[in-house]
């Protein structure tokens, strides 16, 4: 039996990563390394106002005083921050008023990724901001959305066109002092998406940002800021891929969400950065700070993530439940295969009365990977009747991988109810044989079983994403049976 298991596990080929191609396009880069001069140069490249440059410099100086966090269950090789290019942009015409101005190579790249930038070719009901390396290539449907008062544009455009909104909200959820990677991002962030839903508006389409790393030796540092005013609603999708390279590349992003009274934001991610090859060579280091604040009463933030990519993932999409009767959700499927490492989870900080949070985390480990759930549920003194339910399940494929759960619970209010459930299971040979006996081959059986296991989370994804995510799960685990 063991030899059969070994055989199948060894077939974990880390399948050819579908998005590993590189776009050959002229790229404009700044020199390697990080110092104040580089930070100023990035700001100058982006033609930023003084206040933004100053903010970057402050963040950079603070970053210099910080150490990389080492508390996660991760083995991170030493990163030489002076050996990274902090700004890379596809060379193109200065203004992108219509798609005709976008380099055909770029349009082609996004076509290959399944993200057509021509509005008429897009899935109906999805507006896209396409970001390659350090800049936003194209934002679709901006005009349609503008009619409703919705702002959906690249972060750079927002800095130029809506400085007051950016000043007010940027850093209000994740200040640059928050952590090492947040400080780094605040100093050198390149682009990203900005989204503002005005009072009373339900955004009629899914908004989505597609991030693509292309250039070699560069880091990608984008930020996303979503503000939902009173009684508004938006569903936001994020996708990411990168070329297959032997060296590791750093990705350190920030996402901030603010919901005012009765507002709701649903944020879904399918993270598929290049995970490295089957021997653990290459892959993206994904160190991301994502946090939302339910600022107004009765508001709601929901994080859904499907994490299949990256060599190393360090990521804890969190919620501060500040208003009364606020709701926060975290639904996560994290898959690790081969030598991938993931330390991911969430933080739910209950401040408001009757605030409710739900955490559903499904870890799937295969190969020689390490997969950890790390979550904090904190109930502050004033959070009367706060409720949390956490469920953390781990599924193991094979016996060379690891699954770990690190739940932290801090409760300062006696009326709070916090529940935590955790399970660990293996895909059973008997389950696979049962499928085989019905005519389903092993690879498909695993896809079926894993998707069943993750169903609770996948069901939370918008339809267009759910189908993709299901396929991705099956592909990421092809051949890895235990």
């Amino acid at each position, binding site marked *: *039996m063991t030899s*059969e298991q070994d055989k199948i596990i060894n077939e974990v080929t880390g399948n050819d990563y579908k998005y590993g191609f590189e776009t050959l396009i002229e790229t404009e880069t700044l020199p390697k390394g990080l110092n104040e001069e580089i930070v100023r140069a990035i700001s100058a490249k982006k033609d930023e106002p003084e206040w933004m440059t100053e903010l970057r410099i402050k963040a950079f100086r603070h970053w210099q005083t910080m150490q990389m966090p080492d508390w996660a269950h991760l083995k991170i090789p030493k990163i030489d921050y002076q050996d990274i290019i902090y700004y890379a942009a596809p060379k193109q015409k200065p203004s992108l008023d219509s798609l005709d101005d976008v380099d055909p190579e770029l349009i082609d790249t996004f076509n290959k990724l399944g993200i057509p930038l021509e509005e008429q070719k897009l899935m109906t009901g999805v507006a896209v901001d396409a970001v390659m390396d350090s800049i936003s290539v194209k934002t679709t449907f901006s005009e349609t959305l503008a009619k409703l008062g919705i702002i959906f544009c690249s972060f750079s455009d927002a800095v130029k066109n809506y400085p007051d909104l950016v000043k007010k909200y940027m850093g209000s959820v994740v200040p640059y002092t928050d952590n090492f990677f947040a400080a780094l991002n605040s100093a050198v962030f390149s682009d990203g998406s900005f989204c503002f839903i005005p009072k009373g508006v339900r955004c009629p389409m899914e908004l989505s940002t597609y991030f693509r790393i292309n250039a070699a030796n560069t880091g990608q540092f984008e930020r996303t800021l979503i503000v939902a005013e009173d009684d508004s609603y938006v569903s936001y999708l994020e996708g990411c891929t990168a070329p297959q390279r032997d060296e590791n590349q750093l990705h350190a992003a920030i996402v901030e969400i603010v919901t005012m009274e009765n507002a709701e934001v649903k944020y879904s991610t399918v993270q598929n950065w290049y995970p490295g090859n089957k021997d653990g060579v290459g892959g993206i280091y994904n160190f991301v700070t994502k946090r939302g604040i339910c600022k107004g009463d009765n508001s709601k933030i929901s994080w859904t993530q499907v994490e299949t990519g990256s060599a190393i993932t360090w990521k804890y999409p969190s919620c501060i439940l500040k208003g009364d009767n606020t709701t926060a959700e975290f639904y996560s499927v994290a898959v690790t295969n081969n030598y991938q490492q993931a330390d991911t989870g969430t933080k739910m900080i209950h401040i408001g009365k009757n605030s409710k949070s739900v955490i559903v985390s499904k870890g799937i480990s295969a190969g020689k990977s390490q997969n950890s759930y790390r979550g904090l549920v904190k109930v502050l003194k004033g959070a009367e009747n706060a409720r949390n339910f956490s469920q953390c399940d781990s599924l193991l494929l094979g016996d060379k991988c690891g699954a770990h759960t690190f739940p932290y619970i801090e409760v300062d209010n006696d009326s709070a109810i916090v529940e935590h459930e955790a399970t660990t299971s293996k895909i*059973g*040979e*008997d*389950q696979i*044989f*049962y*499928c*085989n*006996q*019905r*005519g*389903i*081959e*092993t690879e*498909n059986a695993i896809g*079926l*079983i894993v*998707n*069943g*296991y*993750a*169903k*609770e989370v996948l069901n939370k994804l918008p339809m267009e994403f759910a189908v993709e995510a299901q396929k991705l799960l099956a592909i990421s685990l092809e051949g890895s049976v235990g």
Partner: protein
Amino acid sequence: MLSIKDLKVKVEGRDILKGINIDVKPGEVHAIMGPNGSGKSTLAATLAGKDTFEVTSGEVRYLGKDLLDLSPEDRAREGIFLGFQYPVEIPGVSMVNFLRTALNEHMKYKGEKPLSAGDFLKLMREKKELVDINSDLTSRSVNEGFSGGEKKKNEIFQMALLNPRLAILDETDSGLDIDALRIVAKGVNNLRSKDNAIIVITHYQRLLDYIVPDYVHVLYNGKIVKSGDKTLAYELEKNGYDWIRQESDINV
């Protein structure tokens, strides 16, 4: 259709089957009876291709092919169905999705086009009526939270849907009340035709009142020690397995 010759099987180093010989022709129903631990389930799982069982010698021909050479999924696609003694739960995978995936694999193997969702649901409805299965069972996850009886009925339902050439039912009757037993028998009898064959593995003669076998084999200590027609089942019911034990131990 199925010809088993001198089949010997080891499980975790122990000899379980010690030379089995059975011939099954199209249209026949064979019952295999025997006390606990005699090797009945091992025989069923070996025919279905469970890889933890080691075939040390012998030959199994099925429809002119070397059965032991085929993967478990190809055996299934070639029309072998195993009704499990302990059907497995697969949380989160709906019966509809599971069976549709399975049926489409069968179609693909035969070079046929997969059924449309509509046609599939229609087929499911038909087969559901046939085995009188509670209609909400099929919208639930595979066997999850099913009672013992529901699991067994679900096996028969799957059999009806996949329409096998050779069905092997491993103690499908155990733990069933008389009503469920009738439903299971009805499902099996519906499958009976001059082209199909059925192997029923059971402890009790009771099931054979409903599924009348052409042949009864008694498996004891890894060998078929007695074969006969259905009257053999009555004899076993009346006298228990002790006389078989004595008889075969004397022969040894």
